[in-house]
């Protein structure tokens, strides 16, 4: 059976060429002087300094985090009850509901955002509200499905035991179903918050040009200004934020288990 391990060699080669090498490229460009497109090996941290010293860049970062946070919280508030009610449906109705939720995920995100652009033309909303609707629309199904998977895995007998010990429906939900569905919420957060922070299509198409999130900044410095070094630096900063928040949610998840 040991020989089977050799079967993963082609894949190891693949990830080193197409995942590791590119990330190294970003790192290199982020810490070297601007060479408009070519790699100059003069080491510098000026790009990071430039990013963190300018209040506007920080405001852009803060706006991205803020909109992603509101989107995630809203998805949880709207998504959790939906997931709970679906989990209480009968078997066949449940599979139908999940199918109905997954169908839109298959349709191009661009087309759906374009549809929203058409719809939102009727209303005169602030760009931030439009971006918020677009984001919630795109990420809500992911959240509902993650939470539903967690809830449907719970052993029904636990609820019976809770009733038996005197807890009514609401108390049983609060003390048994909710705490045990936390892992589902956390995996939902990772599937919503992380992409939301870095999204650049929805803000661009729905928020008009001015609603700049960090994703737009990266696109701007790579495609418009052609400053790859600064663009890479911003990407690295965002990647670090993502990894930090992912680590945080993992720890939260593990501590939830220990409690």
């Amino acid at each position, binding site marked *: 059976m040991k020989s089977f391990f050799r079967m993963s060699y082609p894949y190891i080669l693949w990830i080193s060429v197409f995942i590791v090498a590119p990330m190294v490229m970003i790192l290199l460009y982020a810490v070297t002087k601007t060479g408009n497109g070519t790699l100059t090996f003069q080491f510098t941290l000026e790009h990071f300094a430039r990013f963190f010293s300018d209040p506007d860049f920080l405001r852009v970062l803060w706006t991205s985090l803020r909109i992603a946070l509101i989107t995630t919280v809203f998805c949880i508030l709207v998504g959790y009850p939906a997931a709970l009610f679906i989990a209480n449906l009968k078997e066949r109705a449940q599979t139908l509901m999940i199918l109905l939720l997954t169908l839109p995920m298959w349709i191009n995100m661009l087309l759906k955002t374009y549809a929203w652009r058409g719809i939102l033309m009727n209303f005169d909303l602030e760009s931030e509200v439009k971006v918020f609707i677009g984001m919630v629309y795109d990420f809500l199904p992911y959240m509902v499905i993650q939470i539903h998977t967690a809830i449907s895995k719970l052993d029904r007998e636990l609820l*019976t*035991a809770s009733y038996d*010990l*005197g807890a009514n429906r609401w*108390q049983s939900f609060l*003390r048994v179903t909710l*705490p045990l569905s936390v892992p589902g919420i956390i995996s939902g957060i990772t599937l919503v918050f992380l992409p939301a922070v870095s999204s650049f299509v929805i803000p661009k198409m729905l928020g008009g040009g001015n609603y700049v999130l960090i994703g737009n900044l990266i696109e701007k410095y790579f495609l418009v200004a052609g400053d790859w070094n600064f663009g890479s630096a911003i990407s690295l900063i965002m990647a670090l934020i993502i990894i930090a928040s992912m680590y945080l949610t993992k720890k939260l998840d593990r501590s939830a288990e220990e409690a």
Partner: protein
Amino acid sequence: MRKLIEFRNIVKSFDGQIVLKGVNLNIYENEFVTLLGPSGCGKTTLLRILGGFLEQDEGTVIFDGQCIDRVPPYRREINTVFQRYALFPHLNVYENIAFGLRIKKTGEDIIRQKVGRMLSLVNLEGYEKRNVTKLSGGQQQRVAIARALVNEPSVLLLDEPLGALDLKLRKEMQRELKRIQQEVGITFIFVTHDQEEALTMSDKIVVMKEGEIKQIGTPLEIYNEPASAYVARFIGESNIMSGVMLEDYKVRFDEKNFDCVDFGFRPNEPVDVLIRPEDIDIVKPKEGVLRGTVKSAVFKGVHYELMVETQTGTSKTVQMHVVTQHDLTNAATGEKISANDFYVDLDDLENGHMTDADFIRIANAQAWDGENRDISLTRVSHHIENRTGVYSITFGTEKRTEITVKVYVVHPEYVEDPRHNIGITALDFFITPDEIMESMAISTDLKSWASAEAWNLQDDSSIEITDVKFDFDPATITEGSYEITFSTRGREYKVETTSAHEAGDRIGISFGADDIHVMRKEVGEV
């Protein structure tokens, strides 16, 4: 004792299948009641209805004088220990046990005091902070009990709680549950399918079958005075015979009359008679009420369990003609073929039962090639008529290697035993020494070679031929004729005794009048 729980005519069905057929049952305070029956008899459904997790289709449940059908489970003075414990994985041992008290908003210090007491009751002091998923089966089960008892319910429901434990731990937990019940002094309702568990722990046993209560009584009553063959068979070991109640105190079974202590039956009423194996004593053949030979003796730790055959079954003896090996070799293809002469039953011939495959089987015709690999016999030709007499039959392989043997068509001699309405038949047969030596299961092969069969005279259903008696040694057999007797099962008694015996001993068995328990025949009872 005060009546605590009353089930009145409880009916329940799951998508069309009746699970409870109008159950009536009263349970008294501080009783240890066991609902006993095979899986699917409705015992768990009854329990869950009492717990409030299921709603009965008809009937009412009275608890402490009031009807509690409308009361939701969380307002019933009842707590449950579930089959798979259902401990809350996100809470530790202490929090699990304190769950019910926290719901009732009990003060923190009272909770600490009550949980502490519970932990000592179930010998789990010091486990407060442990994660429940990491505990052993026994420990988890004890936490489940503590979690239920801490709320001081007036009734504790236990749904097969010992099912997942190993034997030794299960025994220990049985004693501990009994101890806790007596110490805490509340009503336990225990569901199980393990009759030994029911006997050791219960004050009252309720035997159930297919949604109905068959008998309610103390373990002793259930064991000694089973209401029906079903109950008797379900509790403890038993010898059950069908018989006739001649008059009070006199019953007839196995063609003999016996005095007994039962009365109140109609004259000559067909009844079931029960004798417990431990009530039967082994004596000298002469002194025994019945005489028989020991068929098997198995040591069960404390005692031996003997199977004593007091009446032989119906039997039939036939002749086995052992002839020399005479397989032919086809020089051209190097193939070998062999077959034996054989007898055929005229009846089988007449109603067209006999196919080429049957002929091949009975003649034990075989063919194999140079490397000793079997070849199928594809060409069988014969002109046997439906009349007794001697005919010939030829078996051949694809490559024309052939052999011809004689077929004796004979009138079958059936042996019929009207008393036990059993019929048996068998035919003489020819065989070679090699085939006997090669046979891996000699009794089965002898039955097949002799086409030995037994059947029930009334409904023609086949009856097993249990014994094949022969007095030759298969390993050293030589040509000649030998007698073989095939017989069905006779009357056998299971006997528990501390004295050692071996198969074949001739002994006598005896039992007293009070060892005989006469039971009314259940309608539709087998």
